[in-house]
């Protein structure tokens, strides 16, 4: 259990900080999310192409897009594990709005996993500036393609997949051509961390990550998907037509990877795993929120509705169903907490959670860091140091642990989340079908959690790969 190893090593202030995060989330829920949850969903039913700028601006005003950007890069520097707790709180009221906040950090995590300190600093400071000016600056991850979902997340599958987003090396940068789909928050974001391939015949050895900014020549938005749920969070098509990306916006490419210990393919899988080990804990947080929201709707209904002459909450079968739902919430939460401990020990959060680093960053004033840090972070040496520490020094066992736990939490929590939604609707009957009783919205919203960030089937295979396959040399994954 990662927690047994991690708890003694964790800074004690993290607990207080996480409590602070919960308090902020609850206040935000009361003042912003709850009054708007049904309205936003209705708006999206009415006009599926509506863009939720009003909410994004409100979240920006509250500082929610810089909360988990490390203080080193100008952000507010809350411990990244506390983001799962935050999205659980928001998700317990509205998964769309939780996504409009949380998915930005999928972009941040992708950027950070490149360990390109110069680019991380540049883009993160754009986000901070956007907060100050009132012009939200969100970041996305653009990886899924029309013909390739699972194939782009697993390097073992990439070479046989139908991958088409081409990055051609040209003087001074790369030229991008292709399309990305299902990009959460796409239309309301400024930066897009885009995965592309120099060689489409062998993408696993030719993957690069670049930052594309909204408004760049050759980059445009396509359609917005019309989804069953999570309607308030746009899923966008991004189109690249001879889009020139200068070298200074290349987060990581094969030339840089060549300087590292692992092969190109293994390094890119390591980078992807760094991201998803962290963000799948976030998805588990969303799912815990959905499980909780469905439970809340059911217990409120049971407490106020007479069935066969007595309150539903006093029927033994209903009490057992509610207990089962409560258990599902608790287990879902435990799954992401354990994953976060794994990430604290071996993953993306490791450096920042080391006690001396954590307390130093907590204590040193913002203005001082802002003055000193960019000068250092812009030096190629710093990128080299971070990549050494985070990529070369991370063992295979380390990333199997974080990646395995990320997948385990993702499919466990999302299955439990949808289970609770089913149970709530069964308990509420006709009342549960109505939009104004919330349960049906959780049911629609929660289903997406079993699909994005790797389908639950892919995540099960990853758990096998990370936790079992290594003990059996005869075992092969993704090659049946």
């Amino acid at each position: 259990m990662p927690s047994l190893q991690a708890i003694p090593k964790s800074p004690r202030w993290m607990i207080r900080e996480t409590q602070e995060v919960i308090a902020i989330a609850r206040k935000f829920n009361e003042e912003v999310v709850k009054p708007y949850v049904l309205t936003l969903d209705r708006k999206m039913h009415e006009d599926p192409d509506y863009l939720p700028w009003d909410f994004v601006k409100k979240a920006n005003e509250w500082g929610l897009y810089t909360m988990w950007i490390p203080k080193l890069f100008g952000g507010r520097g809350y411990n990244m594990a506390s983001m799962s707790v935050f999205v659980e709180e928001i998700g317990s009221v509205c998964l769309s709005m939780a996504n409009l906040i949380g998915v930005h950090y999928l972009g941040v995590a992708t950027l950070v996993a490149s360990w390109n300190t110069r680019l991380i600093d540049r883009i993160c400071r754009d986000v901070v500036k956007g907060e100050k000016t009132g012009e939200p600056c969100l970041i996305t991850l653009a990886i899924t393609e029309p013909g390739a979902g699972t194939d782009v997340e697993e390097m073992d599958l990439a070479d046989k997949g139908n991958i088409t987003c081409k990055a051609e090396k040209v003087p001074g940068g790369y030229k991008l051509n292709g399309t990305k789909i299902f990009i959460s928050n796409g239309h309301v974001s400024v930066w897009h961390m885009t995965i592309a391939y120099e060689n489409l015949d062998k993408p696993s050895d030719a993957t690069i990550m670049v930052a594309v900014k909204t408004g760049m020549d050759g980059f445009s938005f396509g359609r917005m998907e019309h989804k069953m749920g999570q309607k308030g969070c746009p899923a966008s098509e991004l189109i690249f037509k001879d889009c020139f990306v200068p070298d200074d916006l290349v987060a990581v490419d094969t030339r840089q990877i060549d300087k590292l210990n692992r092969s190109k393919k293994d390094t890119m899988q390591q980078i992807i795993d760094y991201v998803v080990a962290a963000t799948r804990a976030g998805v588990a947080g969303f799912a815990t929120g959905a499980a909780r929201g469905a439970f809340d709707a059911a217990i409120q209904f049971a407490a106020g509705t007479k069935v066969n002459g007595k309150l539903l909450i006093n029927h033994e079968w209903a009490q057992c169903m509610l207990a089962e739902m409560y258990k599902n919430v608790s287990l879902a939460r435990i799954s992401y907490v354990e994953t976060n401990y794994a990430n604290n020990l071996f993953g993306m959060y490791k450096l920042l959670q080391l006690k001396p680093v954590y307390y130093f960053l907590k204590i040193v004033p913002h203005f001082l860091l802002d003055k000193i840090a960019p000068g250092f972070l812009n030096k190629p040496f710093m990128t080299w140091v971070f990549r050494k520490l985070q990529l070369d020094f991370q063992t295979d066992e380390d990333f199997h642990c974080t990646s395995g736990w990320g997948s385990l939490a993702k499919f466990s929590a999302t299955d439990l989340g949808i289970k609770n939604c089913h149970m709530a609707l069964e308990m509420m009957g006709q009342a549960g079908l109505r939009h104004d009783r919330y349960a049906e919205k959780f049911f629609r919203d929660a289903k997406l959690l079993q699909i994005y960030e790797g389908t639950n089937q892919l995540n099960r295979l990853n758990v096998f790969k990370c936790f079992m396959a290594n003990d059996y040399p005869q075992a092969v994954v993704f090659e049946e």
Partner: protein
Amino acid sequence: MSKGSHRELKLLGNAAADFSRKELAPSREENDKYPYGAFFDTVINKAYTIDFFHIILPEDAGGMGQGMAALSVVLEHICQEDSSLGGIIFTCSAAHEIMKAAGSMDVLSQITDVAENVNDFLIAFPVFNNPSEIPHLACARKDGDRYILTGSIEYMVLGNIAAKALVPAKISDDNTFSFFLVDLKDKGISISDPILSLGLHACPATDISFQDVNGILIGEENKGKDYFNAMAEKFHVAAAAMSQGIMKGAFKEALAYTKGRFQGGRQIVNWSEMKMILANMAVKIKVSEMILASATVAVDENGNGWRECAKAAAIHIQELACDLTTDGIQVLGGVGYMKDFGQEKRFRDAKHIQAILGLAPLKKIDYLENFIM
């Protein structure tokens, strides 16, 4: 078979399948936009013209006089493509059946004989609530020969498109209720906007309130529970048929998709985990087919234990449909969640239909109490 020969059922099934393919499938996404898009009047009118609303209505009331097997076969084929029309047929037929059980055929004939269009013919009914379980009831008082209704009814299905409604209401203070037929154009009636709901978007429901509205008593006073149960005992198989149709539609779309989509250079149907999901779906459908076929025959032939068969079939098949439609989306991945395909609608509709005729867990307890204990 006592009601409808195999040949008749096959012909009816073919007609419904043809109608679904031509009239429902092409506009499924568009029709599902209701209440934020247009209502599919044209389709409903066509369904009315070819007598899909007349299947169980007795011949002397202008109907086809068929049994539950015929209704089930039509609902199954329709729900493969779009359950909203299935919900409308189910609701109106359930109201007819209650009036039939109450011996109010004269009142029913007055509606069906003079109906000039589908709206005149339809009867709104709160089909997602069992009034004996959760007493969503209006109040009725006797005023000479008349009954006057006040109060409100939640989630009255077809409340905004039907001319008449069948309303459960209390006359006395005990646990009984009675059914009344009301004219929805009565000035004492106020009808809400269509309720935004989980599924069956084009089978609209509304909240209705009554202020001194005339009601015609259906059957006898305080016998509502008997009439509702008489209808429900039979209609469980019709509800199961809707769920079965959804399952078949979901499987068909899933299988077709897996043959055209590639992962790791292979058709995804050739990955063994995908085969496992599809196999589970196929097994559920086969089991459902066998159970439903037995149950509908038992119902139409008044076979031994037919009530038990019908209820058990509905409980089980509705659960299967909820499980299967989740997999139906999962097989398609991201696109399964989008409106471009039918899977997301089937996922919503299957869960919606599980609530028909009352709370799903109570149906189980009721099954045990009534048939086993």
